[in-house]
């Protein structure tokens, strides 16, 4: 079963690659590609499955129905990969990958694979596993009218709003436990770049900047985790207006770890927006300021700008905070693409 699953996902990855090169050749837009992948997926489902995973576009309850928790604790609506047959499952993953960048989809796969590793580690605990990820659609897949694609489970919540040619990924949660594992002899750190780039930024700061960036208090968890949509807290730490160009470049590169999960054209638009905001963007750090190479930081950090909140929160649970992390990616002005979809 597991071997089969792995093969499927790899197959899907290859399929996605082929798809993307085909689409590049035919100059299809990202949105039309996603819409056709969504329609293909929907056509593989029976009526009951379809009804179970399609919601109204403005269904606020379903919009906020995501969490960092395993799906047995916080049940997600929609249809899980486990409930799908091979063809349906591969169509579902083609849909998800069509809305994401290559790097973004890889991150998602690694998070899911990590949950499989966790499952084995916990004695085949049925609350974990890479088939316990749910897919749902809010609204009707359309190239013109806005709709939302949700995909998530334990340590993952993608909320992708498609509005015409625009794509919005906020709010999105990523997490990893174990945050470092080996797969086929290769070391995998699903959120390793988020750790390494932040650590590089901290080390690129001078003494005075560090004093401002490093907070004097501990942060036990995400401040704006699940359920905290639309809130903008007072920013703290070091403002990027006090950074030099090199430091700002590292900061933007770090932000791209989240902003770049969505497909390339939406990511480019998002990065342009965040770049324009850069002097109003803050970086704050709380916790240990050291980390061995190849391991994850054990500190919390937050990046906040006029259209951005990113939080990285190592979790004490499991004993080693470098092995368990939750992250949150938000735009409080544009949760579920509100800025684009409300007139």
């Amino acid at each position, binding site marked *: 079963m597991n071997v089969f699953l792995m093969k499927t996902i790899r197959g899907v990855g290859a399929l996605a690659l082929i798809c993307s090169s085909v689409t590049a050749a035919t100059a299809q837009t990202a949105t039309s590609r996603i819409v056709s992948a969504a329609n293909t997926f929907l056509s593989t489902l029976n009526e009951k499955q379809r009804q179970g995973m399609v919601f109204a576009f403005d269904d606020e309850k379903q919009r906020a129905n995501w969490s960092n*928790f*395993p799906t047995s*604790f*916080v049940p997600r609506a929609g249809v899980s990969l486990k409930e799908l047959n091979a063809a349906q499952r591969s169509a579902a993953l083609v849909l998800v990958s069509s809305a994401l960048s290559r790097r973004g989809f890889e991150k998602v796969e690694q998070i899911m694979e990590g949950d499989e590793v*966790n499952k084995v580690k*916990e004695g085949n*605990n049925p*609350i*974990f596993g890479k088939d316990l990820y749910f897919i749902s659609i809010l609204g009707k897949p359309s190239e013109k009218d806005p709709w939302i694609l949700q995909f998530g489970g*334990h340590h993952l919540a993608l909320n992708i709003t498609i509005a015409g040619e625009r794509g919005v990924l906020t709010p999105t949660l990523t997490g990893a*436990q174990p945050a470092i594992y080996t797969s086929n002899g290769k070391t995998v750190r699903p959120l390793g770049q988020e750790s390494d780039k932040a650590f590089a930024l901290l080390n690129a700061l001078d003494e005075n900047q560090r004093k401002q960036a490093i907070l*004097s*208090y*501990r*942060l*036990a*968890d995400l*401040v704006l985790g699940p*359920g905290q949509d639309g*809130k*903008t*807290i*007072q*920013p*703290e730490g070091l403002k990027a207006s006090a950074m030099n160009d090199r430091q700002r470049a590292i900061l933007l590169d770090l932000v791209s770890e989240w902003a770049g999960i969505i497909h390339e054209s939406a990511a480019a638009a998002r990065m342009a927006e965040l770049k324009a905001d850069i002097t109003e963007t803050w970086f704050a750090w709380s916790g240990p300021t050291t980390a061995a190479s190849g391991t994850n930081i054990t500190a919390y950090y937050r990046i906040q700008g006029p259209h951005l909140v990113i939080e990285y929160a190592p979790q*004490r*649970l*499991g004993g080693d905070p470098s092995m*368990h992390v939750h992250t949150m990616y938000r735009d409080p002005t544009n949760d579920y693409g509100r800025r684009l979809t409300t007139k």
Partner: protein
Amino acid sequence: MNTKLVAAAALVLFLGAPASAHRLDEYLQATIISVEKDHVQAFMRLIPGVAASSVVIASIDSNGDGVISEAEQRAYAERVLGDLLLTVDGNSLRPKLVSVNFPETQEMKEGLGEIRIEFTVDLVSGGPERRIVFENHHQNEISVYLANCLVPRDPNIRILAQNRNERQSFYQLDYTQAGSSSEPASLKGWSAIRGWVGAVGFASIFRLGMRHIAEGTDHLLFLLALLLPAPLLALGSRWAGFAGVRHSLFQILRVVTAFTVGHSITLALAALGLVRVPSRPIEVLIAVSILVSATHAIRPLFPGREAAIAAFFGLIHGSAFATTLGELGLSRWERVASILGFNLGIETMQLIVVAATLPSLVLLSHMRSYWGLRIGVALFAGCASVGWIVERLLNVHCSVDVIVDGVAHHAVWIAGVLFLISLVCWWLPNVLDKQATTEQLSPPTLKRI
């Protein structure tokens, strides 16, 4: 408390709940404050971890029937608000509960439940530069805190600074409010009066003092054990009969006053930072003080010197009160004010306890059978104190708190029933041997009623 957590954590592991999925032994309390023109709004999320949930649920489900009723939800929310200290420009203000939202009990047991409490505080108008201090003392030993404020919606309000202690139980917000002095003069005078009342009220710190005694069963037991023989006269190494109403009242007054003087001294010294005492030995000594006073209630150890003993142990109890106050992280001037408020709270609660038990003690101590009550309560206090000494010395758990809290939970009923019994016994002097008091005690110094 820590031992409870370890036990609970062990239980969780034993039951095989997945260790990797959710919060474990902490009680996460996250507060987001929103400053508006004329009020402060706050949203609290309280999430007990798996191992902390049993302690938290037990404290919510006060009647222990396994169901968290709406009344218990509200009572708990009010208790949480009572554990907050909120001051605006140095004036302590009482938060008003807006809404409370509870998860399923099962969710809480799994460490997933999120209790949501929303409250507001009305702001009187003040100067252009304002300061809000928010302190959370709820379940201090097991909690981790988050405190933040929202970017103000009102463009006239601008956040200047946020300061916190390391664990975020203390949060200080400085902001400016433009156009704050544009109020009509008549309103200004009124709000100045309201501000003054708020300033001299010490309301929340006073309540903290009262609750410290009401819930600090060890302080209560010490006081009760010391009061038990107060109406009696010591004859050699044993307690003889009733020593007269005036003697009783005078004796009780002396003991309570001496205790107050004692704990006020150490509370003031420690709260002002002039002396520092480690809390663990103090906790042990408090348990010892109960053992001593309980023994004294059975056999007089220090007849006639109760006041001195009360004052001495008062010094020890005061050091413990100071720990509570010290956790607040107040400035020196705020501390002086809060010592007064806190102490007044303690005094008030003590007086309530004395007022509730004194009539029964005086009425019942007429009778020979009073020894039964005296020995019974003293033995209970003695056993509890031994339990506490063992717990606090060896850092082990022997559920003393559970038993004592269980009894203390029904304190009002017990006191009421006791008073009724004592009234009945007083009205029916023939049923019991009231005359014994005069037969046994011949010394001329004794006064009859």
